[in-house]
């Protein structure tokens, strides 16, 4: 019996006492009244017939006693009736409570079963019925519990999938990296073998050695890029977005590529009205933007201009990087952000290049809730658009 039903019983007892009191006092009042009436009748009759005094007294006494007995009997009857009514109510209450408890235990058991399923990594099977509702007095609490369990399951499943996806991704990454390293390594090996030949001239040897050096440089660059990529993919690099000035980040990015731009006499213009504070990781966002600028410089002719625009949207900041380079063909637009993809024209124009830059840029931006898209311009060149949350 819980506190709620104890309280109810106490209330019943109080009501019973109250009713007994009322009925009791009512009956006493009635008795007093009849006593008074009988007394008056006796006195009146005695005055009218003084000779019959003895008889009258006896008669009245008889009626009086009779009346008293009847009143007492009816009092007890009413009391009994009332008591039985109250106990019936109590019994019914008890029964209902038992039912509720039974339902509750069934529902709790169901929840326990669901939790077991959850542990066994099964999907929740039981309440397929949508908008599942429990009955009984614990409805809101139980519903909350069920809802929480469902949320927990969803979370658990999502985590599980994330782990699996990451594992798969790591495997793919390892395959991709070894594939990328194979080509430069093979050509390095070839020139190394050639240098060791006796028949070649000193001049040829120098050429091969130079080539070797170039290959080693390329390998080093590739390795650096791959390191960054794999560390980012495996969350070894923590990208922590904080509210910082976007102009500072852009300046940092421009500084990283300004020497390359100068050597091709390319101007980098920053169009801005004011500075904005955006939620981003300054160091890594600068890396992402400088990747874009690096590409823009690589694939643009001498004397061209690169424009960076900053605009505020309601919830995001929009950065545009526009160049006058070779542009991107429509069929390649959605492929350029894939890992190790190199545009056909781009590969022809610039030999070195790993297909990591744009992928890295996308990863960095998406990691902090931003996006990047590319668009070809009508004449020549391309526009990259970055959004960052404000």
């Amino acid at each position, binding site marked *: 019996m819980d506190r709620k039903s104890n309280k109810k019983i106490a209330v019943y007892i109080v009501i019973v006492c109250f009713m007994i009191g009322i009925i009791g006092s009512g009956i006493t009042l009635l008795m007093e009244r009849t006593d008074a009436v009988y007394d008056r009748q006796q006195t009146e009759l005695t005055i009218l017939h003084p000779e019959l005094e003895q008889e009258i007294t006896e008669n009245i006494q008889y009626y009086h006693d009779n009346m008293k007995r009847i009143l007492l009997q009816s009092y007890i009857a009413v009391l009994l009736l009332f008591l039985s009514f109250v106990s019936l109510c109590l019994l019914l209450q008890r029964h209902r409570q038992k039912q509720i408890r039974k339902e509750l235990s069934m529902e709790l058991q169901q929840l326990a079963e669901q939790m077991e399923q959850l542990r066994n990594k099964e*999907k929740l099977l039981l309440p397929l*019925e949508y*908008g599942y509702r429990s009955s009984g007095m614990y409805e809101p609490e139980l519903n909350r519990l069920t809802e929480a369990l469902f949320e927990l399951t969803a979370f658990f499943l999502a985590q599980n999938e*994330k782990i699996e996806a990451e594992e798969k991704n790591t495997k793919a990454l390892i395959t991709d990296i070894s594939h990328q390293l194979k080509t430069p390594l093979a050509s390095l090996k070839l020139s190394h073998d050639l240098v060791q030949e006796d028949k070649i001239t000193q001049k040829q040897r120098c050429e091969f050695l130079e080539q070797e050096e170039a290959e080693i440089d390329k390998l080093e660059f590739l390795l650096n890029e791959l390191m960054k990529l794999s560390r980012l993919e495996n969350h070894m690099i923590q990208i922590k977005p904080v509210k910082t000035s976007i102009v500072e980040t852009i300046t940092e990015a421009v500084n990283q590529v300004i020497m390359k731009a100068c050597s091709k006499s390319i101007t980098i213009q920053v169009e801005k009205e004011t500075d904005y504070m955006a939620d981003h990781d300054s160091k890594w966002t600068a890396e992402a933007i400088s990747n874009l600028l690096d590409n823009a410089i690589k694939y643009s002719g001498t004397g061209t201009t690169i424009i960076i625009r900053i605009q505020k949207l309601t919830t995001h900041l*929009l950065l545009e990087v526009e160049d006058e380079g070779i542009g991107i063909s*429509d069929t390649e637009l959605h492929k350029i952000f894939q890992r190790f993809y190199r545009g056909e024209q781009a590969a022809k124009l610039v030999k070195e290049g790993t297909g990591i830059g744009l992928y890295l840029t996308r990863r960095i931006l998406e990691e902090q*809730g931003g*996006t990047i898209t590319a668009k070809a311009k009508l004449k020549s060149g391309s526009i990259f*658009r970055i959004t960052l*949350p404000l």
Partner: protein
Amino acid sequence: MSTILKVENLIKYYKTGEAVVKAVDNTNLEIIRGEFTVIVGRSGSGKSTLLHLIGGLDRPDSGRVIMDGQDIFSMKEDQLARLRRNKIGFIFQDYNLIPSLTVWENVVLPLGLDKKKVRKDKIMEILSKIGMEDRKDARPDTLSGGQKQRTAIARALAASPAIILADEPTGNLDSKTELEVMSLLKKCVNEFGQTLVMITHDETIAQMADKVIYIEDGKVVTVS
């Protein structure tokens, strides 16, 4: 990686006079949980019909749509309606906001249909995330296109559905608002771990997707 949604041999033909339009012609596809999938096709390629079928808004001639292991067309109409309200969020090109209700009322409307308790703090969180918290008492006709679509996004997110189906959500927006709406949608979906399926004919949006499905004449042509 688990499949949240599977489409098996789905067929839907329309008859217009003598000609039969094969809107969805024996289509098979899978949507992975947590991924952002874009379905690209020219207008008239049957992509909207496909999305309506996936979302249980329309019934196919034959074929199955299996969501979380359940064949949705084997359900009774009211069960299907409940599944739609609990598991699927819809976003449409023309927003489908109710003009006589405020932004707040529009957002909590689907919750009311299910007699769910409205968790005010959660709705406020969504509204502030999409930058509409100070316009929550405005009526749709006073909002710009971007604001209307952001309201529709909030409405789709309010019931925290597992999957969000969007039918050209940026079709009526200029390119900058489009970028903003897309960024928001992507960000929210990532944060709440939801699956997003979007129909578009815009290659720019396809660049943001994890998976692109091309559709032509009711058939899946390529997946990349």
